[in-house]
């Protein structure tokens, strides 16, 4: 599996955190999901991501859980049935997956699977960062 980290927002542009979207085998569920939103919802998500990047974990929103109770990743839920998942790694926010559910909340199996996924993406990100440092 080929994993890449696409930088959406950067500290170089004055943000407190860098924001990345995971791309797996040349496809990013996160970016594709943002792209598939209606213009209004897209604007909302874009602004929420900017607020998170600007303010870091001090930013409070009913739509952002910086860390879920039983897991080591967070959730951005702009609407009842849309879920973006991220992990904070030092000064980086890595959006690694997206889920959708028509009604109610997601099943715990999904959250458990995401926890495993998150660990994998975190490890890969460490390599990505160290690779970038070597290239500098």
């Amino acid at each position, binding site marked *: 599996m080929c994993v890449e980290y696409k930088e*959406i*927002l950067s500290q170089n542009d004055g943000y407190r955190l860098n924001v990345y979207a995971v791309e797996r085998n*040349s496809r990013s569920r996160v970016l594709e999901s943002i792209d598939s939103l209606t213009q209004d919802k897209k*604007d909302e998500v874009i*602004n*929420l991501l900017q607020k998170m990047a600007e303010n870091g974990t001090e930013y409070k*929103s*009913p739509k952002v859980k910086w860390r879920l109770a039983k897991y080591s990743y967070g959730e951005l839920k702009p609407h009842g049935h849309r879920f973006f998942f991220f992990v904070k790694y030092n000064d980086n926010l890595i959006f690694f997956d997206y889920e959708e559910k028509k009604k109610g909340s997601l099943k715990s199996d999904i959250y458990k699977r995401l926890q495993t996924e998150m660990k994998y993406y975190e490890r890969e990100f460490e390599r990505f960062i160290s690779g970038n440092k070597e290239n500098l």
Partner: protein
Amino acid sequence: MKENSKDLYQEIKKIFNSEPTSNQKAWGLIHDFYHIILTEMEEKNISRSELAVKTGKSKAMISKLLNNSPNISLKKMVELADSVGIELKITTTQIEKSKEQFFLKYKQELMAHTTRGVKVVISSYIEDFNFSCNEKKNCNTIELKEEDSAYVW
């Protein structure tokens, strides 16, 4: 969905780098509002139930307001703000900029006149600026001592 992920990434990156649209600015204000309310609630230890009592609304209504009410009305914003003890006001970047200019002018004037025991009268500035709130009551005249100047700004 875009067929080419590179194009999609470039397109999304371009949106983030562009000047915000009116709709994005509106979302920004709504998000700032909730950030302020939630921060106040946390600092003052106000629960959602207490907020319901303070606003005279049901818990379900408060949950709705705090969870999925993107088009919250200005009236509801003021009600929520009141109930956590903060005052909302509308301002503009232009007003804030002219306030800054006012304070800069005021600061220069204060620094120029700050000698031991000099009474600095700033009421004319305040009138010029049509300055409101407590500053007007409290700052018509200020007695400054030399050593105070370091603490003023």
